[in-house]
């Protein structure tokens, strides 16, 4: 809809909606509380804005009506017209018509309503009331009168007459009968204040420098003598008490001959509005209008309390208006992000499965986790922007409830509770009709008339409660009345009459109350225009269900009834349980699922033709999901899972074949390209791009209850079989293509990956020799290059074909030339294949997994792909071509490479550590992965603790001999922190920083300024505790990761602190724990990145006894 409008129209509609709402609110307050200056000002402001904004979008009739409302309101505002029910009703009438006109406009039409009747009513009201000023006081209620007393604006008694007289005149300026008198007169109510150019505006801003700026208009009695002199006096006076920034007419103008009736000015000064008004009320002044001005932007709203206004302006600027479409779009994208991430996770798991653990994979995993967290944050953030306080909806009902209770002669007190509870905007928008219906029902049928209530000794005034609250993952909206409640027996009787239940059915109370939600069910004896048509309750149910919510009925006969709508907190992304039934997968929204149980065939019994099970003493009706979904009926398996779902009031079970797991899904509607399907809320995309249908419990129940005559009995199961067949055919076609692609490019790529992975270690110790492998590498490089060329060719081809097409089409030929006509040279082979087997093309192509035009004269437009794939597949043994030779070379290269790695590791182990358990390639990778994971965790913990982004990485990692330890410790003053471990893995974690780095890190972590990061500035206790904490975090993270991975119990002890020479530290370590010097220790270089800062630390794992062997064994 928004696209049809220009920007202004949209803005107008937006604003008008708010204004109508505000008008409605204020009129209600006005009626309830009587005269309140602030409320009237607010109403006046709305009418005023409406006048100009509607004129701006061309709604002149609306503008005209607003203008007349404004006129009348001016008198109310000035206290010249009292508040009465008639007046409020008149304004309500206006409001209704404005609303419908705006709605019409919103639908893209131009409203025809000229509001003539309303305008004349307004005018008449004005005339009638004003022409009888003596009656004014009588008309005004007593309460308002009391309130006006303190309003300084209310004129002194002796002045009333005079002002009122002039008031009549200028308010009726447009009326012909008084036109003679009004000729010279200017109405200041409709007069606009001075406007300034932007440069003047900023000048004003500078000059005002925090002082209050006022807009003012002062008009003189039309017949007053020496007008200019009077105005000049006023100007002088204003100048004496403050800064008169500008006036129109200016002082010079006033010195001239032309007489002026009115003066507009901008005044800067330290006085209040009231004082300024008094200053302006000089002799012969007819009217004064003063308003504080917001020097930066528009004019401030007139309020009793000026400081309040300033705050108001401030809070307003914090909010921005964003169209909900944009937010929906964002939310949808984030949803996709979350799903994509779960796809990544799956890929990671596959990689882990096929290639085993490796440092790169661990890193990938941690990045995926990180991305998932960010996506979650983003999601909840956006979600929050969509939440709106439910109070906004509640407010809307004040008016209808007032009208309706008047009409029905019932006395009702509408009470709100929990208005601040926030609900998704989409729900709020859809809530209107169902709420309205429930309210009407309540007023119409639930709440008794006053005599009836008196009869049953209830308070005469009934209470209608609108309540909203949050509990668990749901948000509840409740409508409760203290009326007569639902009549259970009558509902049951009706249900039986209508054949909704069988005569002898036994229903629980809840089931009976749920009957009222059946389409076409109504117990109302008569059909009123308000309710009782029996369609509404069904609408309520449908709306709530469409948001995966539910409606509950709580009824106490004779004492009241309450309808509770429950909505899930978030709509876009939901958790779901994925189940499998006969090769098809479906998703249950987790919000609907109560629990999942496993039962055996024997647990299912039949009661009144329904399959039920005994669920901890309760009867649980169960349905075979495959039957409900139109799958061929089947006997029960011996044992099967049941999804216990909540249908709103009662639990039902759905029998499935298998439960696959829990997953986050984004529900997409099927209606975008298709239609709503009963039993489904929509569909969702899985990480691999496949689609899974999302089930709707209510819909499933309806389907299962409509039993035999249901739509799916006519369904022939061949369609299901066909879809299955279709998918398997498609899958096999795709698989073939994929396999070919892998032969072509997949395998070498894998080799490259492996190479990259093992390269680091090789570089350290292994002399690269093997000439053959060098050759292979060269071939590999050329292969890579070749691939690049191929890619470039592909791009060229794309362009080429496009051009050729253009040429081909210019001949007046319907047939697009077969792609082989313009294939670049390497594709010729494909054409050859075609020629060689003219009769059996499809068989060959079938083998190749692609299709081909069967008749070269009927070249399909779309079959351009034909040549490309055929080119890649050379299953035919047309001798070993270049590619295959490369393939072979690569294969041997791979084998050799693997051997080399093993040899290298053997050497490494043999040379250095004859007596220690060999740290194999695999061990190395696993250990690295675990240590890396631990470091990542440490990074997260640090990030959270510091509120900064800290990443910890492991640039280097190796197993070294204990004797080499000193070699890794910098030969300067150092700080070491030790962390002993107990449990299954006994040893020592040693964390070493050079002193400078240590102080640097501590200073940084303590948040000290940079010049304090030194030994002199940080006390020993401080650095001790900070670095100990750091080691604790990092060490524990790594140990935890190890413990988690191995299942070993590892406890870290209290950190110890050492400072001094490297040798001293080694000695200290010896003292702490006699480390077996023959053992390998693990050296872990650690990098801390904190935003732009990088700190290098060294961490050592010093295992004792056979701890390392045990650890590696368990890995």
């Amino acid at each position, binding site marked *: 809809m928004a696209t049809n409008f220009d920007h202004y129209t949209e803005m107008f509609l937006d604003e008008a909606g708010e204004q109508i709402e505000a008008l409605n609110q204020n009129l209600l307050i006005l009626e309830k509380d009587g005269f309140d200056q602030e409320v009237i000002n607010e109403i006046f402001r709305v009418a005023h804005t409406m006048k100009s904004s509607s004129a701006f979008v061309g709604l002149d009739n609306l503008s005209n009506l607003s203008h007349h409302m404004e006129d009348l309101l001016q008198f109310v505002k000035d206290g010249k017209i009292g508040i009465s029910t008639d007046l409020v009703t008149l304004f309500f009438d206006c409001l209704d018509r404005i609303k419908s006109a705006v709605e019409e406009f919103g639908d893209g039409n131009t409203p025809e309503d000229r509001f003539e009747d309303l305008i004349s009513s307004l005018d008449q009201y004005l005339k009638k009331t004003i022409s009888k000023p003596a009656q004014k006081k009588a008309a005004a209620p007593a309460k308002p009168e009391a309130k006006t007393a303190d309003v300084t604006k209310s004129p002194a008694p002796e002045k009333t007459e005079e002002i009122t007289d002039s008031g009549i005149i200028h308010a009726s300026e447009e009326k012909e009968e008084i036109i003679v008198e009004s000729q010279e007169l200017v109405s200041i109510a409709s007069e606009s204040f001075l406007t300034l150019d932007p440069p003047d505006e900023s000048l004003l801003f500078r000059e005002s420098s925090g002082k209050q700026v006022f807009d003012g208009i002062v008009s003189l009695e039309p017949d007053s003598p020496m007008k200019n002199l009077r105005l000049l006096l006023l100007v002088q006076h204003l100048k004496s008490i403050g800064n008169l920034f500008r006036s129109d007419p200016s002082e010079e103008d006033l010195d001239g001959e032309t007489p002026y009736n009115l003066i507009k000015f901008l005044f800067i000064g330290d006085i209040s509005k009231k004082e300024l008004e008094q200053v302006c009320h000089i002799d012969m002044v007819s009217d004064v209008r003063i308003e504080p001005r917001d020097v930066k932007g528009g004019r401030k709203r007139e309020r009793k309390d000026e400081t309040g206004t300033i705050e108001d302006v401030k809070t307003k600027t914090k909010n921005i208006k964003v169209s909900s479409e944009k937010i929906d779009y964002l939310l949808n994208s984030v949803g996709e992000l979350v799903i994509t991430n779960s796809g990544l996770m799956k890929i990671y798991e596959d990689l882990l499965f096929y290639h085993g653990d490796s440092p790169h994979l661990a890193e990938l995993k941690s990045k995926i986790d990180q991305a998932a967290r960010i996506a979650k944050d983003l999601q909840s953030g956006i979600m929050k922007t969509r939440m709106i306080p439910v109070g906004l909806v509640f407010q809307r009902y004040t008016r209808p409830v007032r009208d309706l209770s008047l009409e029905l002669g019932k006395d009702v007190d509408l009470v709100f509770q929990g208005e601040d509870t926030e609900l998704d905007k989409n729900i709020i928008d859809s809530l209107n009709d169902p709420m309205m219906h429930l309210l009407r029902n309540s007023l119409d049928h639930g709440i008794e008339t006053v005599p009836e209530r008196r009869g049953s000794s209830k308070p005469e005034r009934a209470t209608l409660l609108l309540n909203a609250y949050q509990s668990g993952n749901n948000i509840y909206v409740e409508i409760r009345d203290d009326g007569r409640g639902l009549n259970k027996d009558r509902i049951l009787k009706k249900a039986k009459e209508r054949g909704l239940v069988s005569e002898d059915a036994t229903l629980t109370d809840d089931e009976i109350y749920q009957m009222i939600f059946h389409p076409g069910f109504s117990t109302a004896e008569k059909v009123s225009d308000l309710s009782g048509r029996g369609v509404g309750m069904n609408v309520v149910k449908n709306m709530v269900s469409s948001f995966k919510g539910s409606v509950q009925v709580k009824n106490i006969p004779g004492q009241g009834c309450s309808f509770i709508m429950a909505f899930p907190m978030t709509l876009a992304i939901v958790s779901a349980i994925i189940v499998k039934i006969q090769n*098809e997968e479906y998703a249950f929204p987790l919000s609907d699922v109560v629990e999942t149980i496993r039962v055996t065939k024997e647990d299912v019994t039949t009661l009144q033709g329904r399959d039920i099970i005994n669920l901890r003493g309760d009867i649980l009706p169960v349905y075979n999901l495959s039957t409900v*979904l*139109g799958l061929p009926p089947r006997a029960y398996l011996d044992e099967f899972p049941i999804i216990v779902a909540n249908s709103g009031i009662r639990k039902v079970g759905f029998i499935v074949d298998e439960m696959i797991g829990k997953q986050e899904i984004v529900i*997409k509607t*099927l*209606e*975008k*390209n*298709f*239609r709503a*399907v*009963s*039993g*489904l809320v929509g*569909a969702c*995309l899985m990480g691999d*791009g*496949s*689609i*899974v*249908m999302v089930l709707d419990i209510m819909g499933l129940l309806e389907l299962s209850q409509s039993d035999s005559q249901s739509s*799916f009995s006519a*369904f*022939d199961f*061949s*369609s299901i079989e*066909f*879809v299955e*067949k*279709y*998918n398997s*055919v*498609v*899958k096999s*076609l*795709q698989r073939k*293509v994929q396999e070919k692609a892998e032969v072509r490019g997949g395998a070498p790529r894998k080799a490259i990956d492996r190479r990259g992975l093992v390269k680091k270690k090789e570089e350290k110790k292994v002399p690269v020799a093997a000439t053959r492998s060098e050759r292979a590498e060269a071939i590999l490089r050329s292969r890579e290059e070749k691939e690049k060329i191929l*890619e470039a060719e*592909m791009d060229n*081809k*794309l362009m080429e*074909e*496009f051009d050729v*097409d*253009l040429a081909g*089409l210019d001949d007046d030929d*319907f*047939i*697009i030339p077969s792609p082989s006509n313009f294939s670049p040279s390497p594709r010729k082979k494909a054409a050859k294949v075609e020629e060689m087997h003219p009769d059996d093309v*499809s068989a060959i192509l*079938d083998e190749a997994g692609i*299709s081909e035009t069967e008749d070269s004269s*009927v070249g399909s*437009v*779309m079959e*351009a*792909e034909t040549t*490309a*794939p055929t*080119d890649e597949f050379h299953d035919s043994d047309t001798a070993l071509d270049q590619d295959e030779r490369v393939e072979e070379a690569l294969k041997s290269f791979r084998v050799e490479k693997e051997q080399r790695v093993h040899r290298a590791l053997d050497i490494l182990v043999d040379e250095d550590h004859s007596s220690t358990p060999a740290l194999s390639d695999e061990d190395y990778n696993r250990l690295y992965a675990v240590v890396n994971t631990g470091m990542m965790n440490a990074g997260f913990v640090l990030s959270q603790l510091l509120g900064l982004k800290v990443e910890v990485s492991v640039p280097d990692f190796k197993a070294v001999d204990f004797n080499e330890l000193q070699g890794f410790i910098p030969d300067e003053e150092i700080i070491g922190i030790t962390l002993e471990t107990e449990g299954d893995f006994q040893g020592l974690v040693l964390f070493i920083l050079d002193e400078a780095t240590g102080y640097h890190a501590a200073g940084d972590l303590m948040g000290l300024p940079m010049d304090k990061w030194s030994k002199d500035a940080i006390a020993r206790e401080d650095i001790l505790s900070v670095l100990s904490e750091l080691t604790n975090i990092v060490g524990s993270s790594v140990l935890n990761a190890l413990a988690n991975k191995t299942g070993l119990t590892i406890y870290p002890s209290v950190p110890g602190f050492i400072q001094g020479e490297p040798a001293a530290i080694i000695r200290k370590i010896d003292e702490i724990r006699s480390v077996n010097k023959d053992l390998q220790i693990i050296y872990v270089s650690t990098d801390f990145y904190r935003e732009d800062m990088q700190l290098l630390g060294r961490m050592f794992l010093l295992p004792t006894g056979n701890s390392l062997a045990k650890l590696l064994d368990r890995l």
Partner: protein
Amino acid sequence: MDERDSGLKSIMMDLKDGTISASSAVAQSTDLAKIELMKTRAARENLLQFLVFQVGKGHYGINILETHEILKPVQVTRIPNSGNDILGVLNLRGNIIPVVDVNKKFLGRHSEISNFSRIVVAAHEGKFTGLLVDRVVEVARVKEDSVEGAEVRGLSQEYINGAARSGERIFLILNLEIIFKKNINN
């Protein structure tokens, strides 16, 4: 051309991600390019262009302007309780699109999937529907006045708008509006 650009972009992304092979990327993008080209040419030359495809033994055409793209058969997910002629839904770059088994719809029997089978994605009033057809044949260019009215030939009248001739071949013009309407309202 925006549509094509975005289509191309997403194909290139798929290619980069490795979800599709280079060859099929070429094919897909040429398809897109061609369809767009047809559309612009048709508009320029005051000729009607139809994408002609074969279902069973019959040939059918839809206006090239209503053709969004043409896919090789991809995996679909069945929509329960939604009629025999709906094969299921497919995922077209995040859009969930129903696929009509045209064989089943017109001839009452399911399609035979072959190497020539295609899913023609038709676009109508912002909605998409896939049509599973046996083979895509050609793009026929037909003079506007040579299109015969709907009263011709007695085949599933409600789905047919008329007939046209391209060389020796006569094809029936599908009433996409009805097909879409039936999808939406059942």
